[in-house]
């Protein structure tokens, strides 16, 4: 496995007229990484991809691939290959011609191309399908052909623009594993664009969370899930319960936050915000549904929450309990099904406790809209 070629975005700004699509992006992507840009639609992630692939010149700043400045280098001259959201296979070319188009461009003979196509078709587990036309294949097979076509160009960096979004759920989950395996096998850098946090978390070495043209946080999946840098990252990635309040007191890496309904609650200040919070500031605190545990009703303290149960759901592996949360927002609690008897609590108050390490505090900010 080669070390792979890294990609750097330095002070990257992309504007369309007055609209700022990407604002001062600074990203270092390690060679051989599976790197995802995660964000809602319209956050500028596809724009970044187009700037890396060369279809778009940044307004300011630069794109470096393997340390080389890509300014003025067209998409046909960059060591990148792009997999489009709709795959963009050539409908009138056979599968093997599609796959080896990049070799045809360079003038390789039909025999050479056919040989390479057969190798790649073996790799994507579609042997003997080379003479078909793209429309004769299933969605998942077309997906694999698109990957083979991009890999055939032997790019240093493979760019993927939500390539799984057109597939059904089951196939999508299967393709996640497959993509990850292919990436490990070929060892090149993958840059993956998605709005699906599940995809980003399962596949990526590192993730950049984007919102409205701004990169909120860069880190591996665990860091982003457990230690979000902004309220947006906390609410966009995975399910989360938000508690709004004001900072009462900050002590080393914890903050005591006074909330309207649940009194003063203690939380760990997220790493990115240490030293940035002081008493009197508006703050937000996030606790994941699975971070709660049942506590005796009425228990008091800085890591207990009491609220009325509004609804319950049995999911098999867990009980989902919905409660009246802070500020009218519903709070979700997920308790594992360990065979305990579980009587209905609907309409009743319930007290929950949490480990302070699992509650994250940060300055108040915009939440992801569902």
């Amino acid at each position, binding site marked *: 496995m080669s070390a792979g070629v890294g990609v750097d975005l330095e002070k990257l700004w992309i504007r369309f007229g007055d609209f700022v699509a990407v604002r001062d992006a600074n990203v270092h992507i390690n060679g051989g990484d599976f790197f995802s840009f995660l964000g809602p639609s319209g956050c500028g992630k596809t724009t970044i991809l187009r700037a890396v*692939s*060369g*279809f778009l010149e940044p307004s300011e700043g630069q794109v470096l691939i393997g340390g080389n400045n890509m300014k003025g280098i*067209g*998409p*046909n*001259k960059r060591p*990148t*290959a*792009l997999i*489009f*959201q*709709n795959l*963009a296979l*050539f*409908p*009138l*070319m056979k599968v093997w011609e599609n796959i080896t*188009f*990049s070799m*045809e*461009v*360079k003038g390789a003979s039909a025999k050479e191309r056919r040989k390479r196509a057969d190798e790649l078709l073996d790799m994507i587990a579609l042997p003997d399908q080379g003479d078909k036309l793209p429309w004769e294949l299933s969605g998942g097979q077309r997906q694999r052909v698109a990957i083979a*076509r991009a890999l055939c*160009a032997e790019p240093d960096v493979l760019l993927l623009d939500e390539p799984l979004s057109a597939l059904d759920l089951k196939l999508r989950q299967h393709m996640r594993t497959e993509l990850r395996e292919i990436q490990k096998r070929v060892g090149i850098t993958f840059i993956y664009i998605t709005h699906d946090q599940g995809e980003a978390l399962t596949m990526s070495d590192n993730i950049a969370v984007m919102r409205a043209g701004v990169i909120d946080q860069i880190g591996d999946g665990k860091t982003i899930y457990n230690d979000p840098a902004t309220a947006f990252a906390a609410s966009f990635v995975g399910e989360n319960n938000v508690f709004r309040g004001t900072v009462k007191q900050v002590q080393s890496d914890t903050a005591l936050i006074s909330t309207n309904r649940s009194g003063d609650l203690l939380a760990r200040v997220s790493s990115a915000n240490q030293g940035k919070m002081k008493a009197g500031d508006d703050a937000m605190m996030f606790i994941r549904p699975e971070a709660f545990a049942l506590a005796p009703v009425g228990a008091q303290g800085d890591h207990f929450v009491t609220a009325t149960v509004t609804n319950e759901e049995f999911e098999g592996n867990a009980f989902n309990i919905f409660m009246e949360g802070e500020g009218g927002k519903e709070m979700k609690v997920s308790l594992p099904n360990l065979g305990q008897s579980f009587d209905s609590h609907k309409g009743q108050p319930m007290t929950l406790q949490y480990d302070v390490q699992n509650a994250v505090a940060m300055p108040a900010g915009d939440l992801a809209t569902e």
Partner: protein
Amino acid sequence: MPRFLKEFFDRNGLGLGSVMLGLVLFWTIGLIILPQLSMLDFSFRPNLPPPEIGGPKDLYTMENYKYLVFGPEGGSQDYNAVDLKVFYRTLVAAIFVTIFNLILCYPIAYYLAQTKGNHIRIFALMLIIPYWINEILRAFALRIIFGETGVLNNLLVAAGIFDTPFDFVRNDIALYAALGYAYILLMIFPIYNVIESLDRNQIEAARDMGASWPMIHRRVVIPYAKPGISSGCTMVFMLSAGALAAPQILGGPSSLWFTQLIYQQFNDNSDWPQGAAYAVVLLVTCILLVLALMRLFKVNMGDIGK
């Protein structure tokens, strides 16, 4: 009743269905097939004065076709060199006009189809509006431009490019320009239609994989646009080969278009059978030529309708 007919009547009802079907049949049979068959019939008959039509002398004959090939009986030449040459030149010129139009129109159609913005609509309008002017007027306008004392010659001489005016009309340049111009839209729009539906990502994908622009057109755009290209070429070729007004007005004095010969037979010589035979030969040759080319370029008949 075949299934498609049954479905057709189920969908439209018996009354409306019959009216629609009747109109279509009247159009194809009454207005196209029967008149053509009658022309075909004419072409095999001798040219007789009206009282003798249907009389004992009115027998089927190959005379009219022989005339095109061999000329008048007892003529000085073995072949009807004059008419055959006109026939040949008409076909070659029509092919030339078609190729010229394709080369001119493909980039325009591609640009129109793959560019977004309001200026495209204005551009398309500028292409369409001149066609509000009728064909004869347009032909005469080109005469004014291309004539010996015309605008173009005045400009060229004034600019010092030519010493003496160039005779565009005698050299058929005016005619080719007129034919090319007359059918530009018929070439642009079928190609435009197809290219407009081409996914822009395909072009970008090809570009991303290192293809140059000529390569992208050769491997991605043109194969995709083939149905549009072939229907455009078919129309332009058929219509140029069958054009009459432009050759009448802009043709040089010595260069006849085959349609003019047909016209002369019908009109000046009042020899309908002879004219019909010439027209049939032109029609059949054009159809065979188109079919042969479609076969050569692997175009299906269904594609032409796209």
